[in-house]
């Protein structure tokens, strides 16, 4: 039986998410201090409603929360056999797998967020669709794009949950054309960036530059890739995934499915928890899922140990 640490992506952020983390915990205190030293600003100024309106601060907050969560688990002896981060979560995963240092990751993530939010000022975004497989959505997108502004499959989250990206008006036409015969749910998301498609190629190229000058360490924990859905075992493949990820479909359904086939049965979602656990529950009904949020680290450790004793390979 193997364990995965899941690192959530954009959409999971919550106002006050860093305030919620108990600063009396020496692990939290240490990571926060490190973050303040690098960013040169107080951690508690990052998770306000005002700051979280900016993609850059959302991504920074998610990185900090992910790293804090994993280190709290490590302090309790909870170990991961695999890590997987959704979109921006991949950076926290890269820190925890030992490829990137926290110090390297923070400015990179801030830059990624800034580049993304500056790429498309208005009229672009993303939409969530429920009810169709990725293959079918892609088929309909190919048809749609013959006559409309191009839209893209941005995330394949579960078998029947997809996210698309592109111009909002074009996405709306697409959703209307499918209608309720195919879709059980469709929603334009409150996001101004058309992520995970070729519209962000320039951001990917910029990130590639920045990553190319960074010295990376070989991973101590294998990572599930965003853009290939494969397992990454080397620093170089993680490097490629970190910049390619921003402009390619997030193959989350494949990534988590692969980890399951490799023996993963316990999935722990770092703070802020909920989104990835729900997806895991839907894709892998046999898997045990544990949220870090609203749980004490020792409770999570206890649960983890009891699941490990339970689930015989």
């Amino acid at each position, binding site marked *: 039986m193997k364990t995965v640490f899941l690192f959530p992506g954009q959409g999971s952020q919550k106002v006050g998410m860093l305030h919620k983390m108990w600063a009396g915990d020496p692990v939290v205190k240490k990571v926060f201090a490190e973050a303040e030293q690098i960013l040169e600003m107080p951690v508690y100024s990052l998770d306000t409603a005002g700051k979280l309106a900016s993609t850059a601060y959302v991504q920074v907050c998610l990185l900090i929360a992910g790293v804090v969560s994993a280190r709290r688990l490590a302090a309790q002896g909870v170990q991961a056999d695999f890590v997987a981060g959704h979109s921006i979560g991949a950076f926290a995963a890269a820190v925890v797998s030992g490829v990137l240092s926290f110090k390297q990751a923070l400015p990179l993530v801030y830059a990624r967020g800034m580049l993304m939010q500056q790429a498309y000022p208005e009229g672009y975004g993303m939409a969530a669709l429920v009810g169709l497989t990725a293959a*079918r959505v892609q088929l309909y997108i190919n048809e749609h794009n013959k006559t409309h502004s191009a839209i893209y499959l941005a995330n394949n989250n579960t078998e029947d949950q997809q996210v698309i990206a592109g111009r909002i008006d074009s996405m709306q036409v697409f959703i209307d054309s499918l209608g309720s015969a195919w879709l*059980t749910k469709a929603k334009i998301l409150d996001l101004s960036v058309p992520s995970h498609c070729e519209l962000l190629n320039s951001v990917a190229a910029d990130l590639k530059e920045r990553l190319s000058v960074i010295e990376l360490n070989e991973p101590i924990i294998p990572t599930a890739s965003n853009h290939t859905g494969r397992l990454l075992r080397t620093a170089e493949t993680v490097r490629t995934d970190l910049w390619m990820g921003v402009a390619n479909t997030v193959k989350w359904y494949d990534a988590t499915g692969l980890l399951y086939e490799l023996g993963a049965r316990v999935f722990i979602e770092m703070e802020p928890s909920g989104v990835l656990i729900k997806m895991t529950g839907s894709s892998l009904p046999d898997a045990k899922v544990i949220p870090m949020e609203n749980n004490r680290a020792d409770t999570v450790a206890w649960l983890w140990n009891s699941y490990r004793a339970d689930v015989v390979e």
Partner: protein
Amino acid sequence: MSTISWTTKREGKAGRIRSLAHLADGVVLKQENLVEAMESLLRPGDRVVLEGDNQKQASFLSKALTQLDPSKVNKLHMVISSISRAEHLDIFEKGIAELIDFSFAGPQSLRVSQMLEDGILKIGGVHTYLELYGRLFIDLIPNVALVAAEKADRHGNLYTGPNTEDTPAIVEATAFKDGIVIVQVNQIVDELPRIDIPASWIDFVVETSEPYQLEPLFTRDPKLISELQILIAMLTIRGVYEKHGVRSLNHGIGFNTAAIELLLPTYGEKLGLKGKIATNWVLNPHPTLIPAIESGWVETVHCFGGEVGMEQYVAARPDVFFTGKDGTLRSNRAFAQVAGQYAVDMFVGSTLQIDEKANSSTVVSGRLAGFGGAPNMGHDPHGRRHSSAAWLDLMTSKDPLAKGRKLVVQTVETFGSGQTPVFVESLDAIEVGKKAGLATAPVMIYGDDVSHVVTEEGVAYVYKAQGEEERKQALAAVAGVTPVGRKSTAENIRSLRERGIVAFPEDLGVQRTEARRSLLAAKNIQDLVEWSGDLYNPPAKFKNW
């Protein structure tokens, strides 16, 4: 006189066995010497059958394979019924194996697809079980077989017991063509309960510190059966079993057929059908069949494999099940597949997608899973000639040479999980097959073999439809509000119903309101245990009371 040697394989085998004589005590190999022994036995490019179906796995031997040195053993051609364990594919990543033939890959289907795409493995073929077993005797003859048994004696006789499954077919193809047979056994004993496979077919046995892996695959908790599934079960009982008087049959693994099993002693009893339908089965020991057996519905059951927890129950019902002199079940997957293909009148199963011509597949979302035995059971063997009332009842022609037809029944809800329509215009399998470079699309059951499709809307007697257009109409008539179903018109439906090509619940005397969970003979696993008189001992993960 010819100077050609006709005994090269025999001599080759003798040479290989001599090379590890120092590691073996007679036929007994020590667990700690296994990897070394396998390295001297196996040659690059060998064809190796590794026993593993959807239930029983030679798990110790598959782990040992991953430890081989790829500089000594490589390019293996693996033949595995069911790719179920991570090691089955790890040996490709490690460069020990390169080619694979298989039937089913459900638990590792994503990795199979990815590794195929990445060029890490090559696929010989995705077969049905019977094709795979058959080819072991034709052009996939093994050099080495790695199999599992419960017990062996010091001579190498084997007791495979309730989970005999694939072992006899694999061992026979290997042993009688000068291949080498290695068996992992849970225990070496002085005296076996019975001999399932004789020692003269076996080369080596290894007693392992952990038992072989065994999955309880056919246990369905009645708690999870929905009222929609109960309605479909009622329609199937009335519109298919009763209408055609079907006595011999196979059921798939899903909740739809579990519901049928649990309705026989209640709904079936009320209809006075006992002894008239569903008497002779080829089926694993499904726990959900216990109430029907206990109520006297079931005359015989022949099994593909065992089922965890059913051992004692089966042993106590030898009039129903096939058992040895020792009292325990004898299963045999190859014989059960033959029986399921040729000897029974009906297959009832389910699927994830079905197209307008009734072609169906469980391959969706790019996972290359294969279908195991479903295509064997789920087709009409055209060479069949033994006539039964049910088979003859499907004869639609007055031609003097007309023949009957096997019933191949698909029972599906019109929408699957996550509200995905089950009825589609074209199968996702087509794209998956193209992407994987398969010669044919991975269809589970071909539309022209399907005789009936049952949904919560009604029964489509597709075997009666004349021509492709009418066949499509019949399917659309039961496809509900899926995009396929919306193509049907009131006029078409009226005509199809009048001509008996489609039947709605009211045409069959089925009350939708009667489809309640209270109709199930057992509502949960605990009820099944009670029905069995405490003989059924469910695995821990199903003991939820």
